[in-house]
């Protein structure tokens, strides 16, 4: 009997250490060509950029795509130096969770002593980390969080994507004028600031355009898997269009179950749907005939976009989604700001970021406005079994 516990401890410790090593390897600096820095001390020729993204968890494809995009941009940036300095990227996984995002931001500031932070994707995650960056006066750029509240945290927080005020209006207009719909149901993810924010903008704008919103509380929570009874209730309310601002994991399951329950009403969503996993989870039947607003379309004929798509495919073997493009542009905007900054202290980096004007990236022309939000165009995409296809471009 004595050797049982010993065996258990041995096994557990073996596993633990093998995990840790691997983790350390993936966590260490991701800078494109230099070996990982072993000391935490600041060296003079390096600008440390922390990246907080969901590399695992329910929105993992977003984090992975973003970091791919960032690395692609970084390769170009580090090919030439910024005033003799090179950018070093330190990636932290927030698992798509707010609490983990706050931890990651704290770690990057306290331990890695980063100069700037990029991240995160989901608004609830960024909202959890942003106040820490603001308090510690470390500039934070989110390439993809669209909730209004994110940049209201303070002057050190900015974004290089549009906001839900714009995205919600785009979809409401699309529903009312392009699709000619009159009666919308809204299904909200209760655990998501993004979902709630987008829903309320859509609601106001759709009403303004003469539509009605079914006044019922259709909600779910992240990580739910069974939506059949909820969908039944939605179906009975008889909408002619359903707005579903959620993330692809739950949306995919919901679209599939909706088809099985005989719901043929079109669903509309936001950039939270824009992942290749959506097609996988919803299946070809579920995904057909729905529309989303997003930041970027790989079908865009623009030269710059096509060059990016080609570069991305060469490096990662898949077409880039919106998050890859946003990560890429976020990194480029940051590099551009660093070039313009008087020196590399937080105050001047912040000033340089916030005064970005007309920077042309693959997601369009980026101008940071007085509220530190990017003013730029959106695209409406149709979801098809083969992927997202370009429908129209909407400028602010």
């Amino acid at each position, binding site marked *: 009997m004595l050797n049982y*516990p010993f065996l258990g401890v041995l096994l557990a410790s073996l596993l633990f250490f093998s995990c840790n090593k691997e983790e350390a390897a993936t966590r260490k600096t991701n800078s494109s060509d230099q070996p990982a820095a072993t000391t935490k001390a600041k060296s003079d020729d390096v600008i440390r950029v922390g990246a907080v993204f969901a590399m*695992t*968890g329910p929105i*993992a494809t977003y984090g992975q795509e973003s970091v791919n995009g960032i690395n692609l941009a970084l390769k170009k940036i580090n090919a030439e130096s910024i005033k003799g300095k090179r950018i070093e990227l330190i990636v932290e996984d927030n698992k798509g969770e707010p609490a983990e995002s706050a931890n990651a931001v704290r770690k990057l500031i306290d331990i890695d002593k980063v100069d700037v932070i990029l991240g995160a994707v989901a608004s609830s995650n960024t909202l959890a980390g942003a106040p820490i960056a603001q308090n510690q006066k470390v500039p934070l750029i989110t390439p993809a969080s669209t909730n209004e509240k994110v940049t209201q945290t303070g002057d050190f927080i900015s974004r290089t994507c549009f906001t839900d005020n714009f995205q919600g209006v785009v979809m409401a207009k699309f529903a009312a004028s392009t699709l000619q719909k009159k009666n919308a149901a809204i299904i909200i993810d*209760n655990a998501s600031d993004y979902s709630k924010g987008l829903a309320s903008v859509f609601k106001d704008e759709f009403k303004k355009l003469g539509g009605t919103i079914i006044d019922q509380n259709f909600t779910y*929570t992240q990580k739910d898997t*069974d939506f059949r*009874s909820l969908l*039944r209730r939605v179906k009975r309310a008889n909408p002619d269009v359903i707005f579903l601002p959620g993330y692809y994991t739950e949306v995919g399951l919901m679209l599939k179950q909706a088809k099985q329950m005989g719901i043929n009403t079109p669903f509309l969503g936001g950039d939270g749907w824009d992942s290749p996993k959506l097609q996988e989870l919803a*299946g070809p039947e579920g995904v057909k005939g729905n529309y989303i607003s997003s930041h970027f379309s790989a079908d865009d004929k623009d030269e710059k976009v096509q060059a990016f798509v080609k570069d991305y495919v060469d490096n990662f073997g898949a077409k880039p989604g919106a998050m890859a493009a946003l990560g890429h542009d976020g990194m480029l905007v940051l590099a551009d700001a660093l070039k313009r900054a008087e020196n590399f202290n937080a105050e001047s980096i912040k000033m340089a970021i916030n005064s970005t004007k007309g920077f042309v990236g693959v997601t369009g022309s980026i101008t940071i406005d007085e509220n530190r939000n990017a003013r730029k165009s959106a695209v409406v995409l149709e979801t098809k079994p083969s992927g997202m296809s370009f429908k129209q471009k909407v400028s602010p």
Partner: protein
Amino acid sequence: MSEEFVFFLYDIATYLLNGITQGSIYALIALGYTMVYGIIKLINFAHGEFYMIGAFIGFYLITSGMPFVPALLIAMIGSGLVAVLIEWIVYRPIRSAGRISALITALGTSLFFQYAGQRVLGADPKAFPQAIKVKTYQIGEIYITNTQIIIFVSTILLMIFLWWLVNKTKIGKAMRATSFDMKAAQLMGINTNQIISFTFFVGAAFAGAAGVLVGLYYNTVEPMMGMIPGLKAFVAAVLGGIGIIPGAVIGGLVLGIAENLVVGLWVSTYRDAIAFAILILILLFKPAGILGENKKEKV
């Protein structure tokens, strides 16, 4: 009957149908909880993880081209073996150390599997392959899919098998004896260690079956998938009367149906809150669970 009333009946039927499907899954997981509790008084919080492991074994087998039924059986055996191993490495050495130690060990084992799973298998949800083409049948306004029918039928078949195993076989008799009085069973020549291993095996195999069925039903698997269903199955087991096999089935179905009625007729936000409030109410009036007093059937 007015048209509104007919539709109301369709609604109720839909919610009941969804509730029974979800409840069947809870019941399959709850069986393992209740069997293990019945035999060694351990609340095995790692039980939800056997469900996850079953789902992943099924996922990899079906992805590599195996048909559904053999994949289901191998997944059941696979998660059963993992459970036997865990019982041998983790639970057996501390069996005499008291119930709190065992409970904490179980929680630790559960977390170990969840996080090791995220590291080894990847934390993103994976799309479960469509092993059986989904067909939807429509009766009036009620939509029922063949996957729902498969879940329901498999659950019933597994229950009948379990009933036969426990009540009609020699090993079942030994299980009942061990559960009734372990010391006395030992004195009568029953190898109780073997019986406990076997109980873990059967319980985990059922959870593994539930995992594969859920993969088929929702088309998604991920390493944390065992957490919530595991908790709910535990509640179902307690609700039905922990240690009592038919109680687990009734508890699971009651919980599944309650949840879906709340979502359908009321507000989905309160699904878990109200479902659990119902449970608290039932337990206030029947602290031993729905089938609580019937001690003879416990295993």
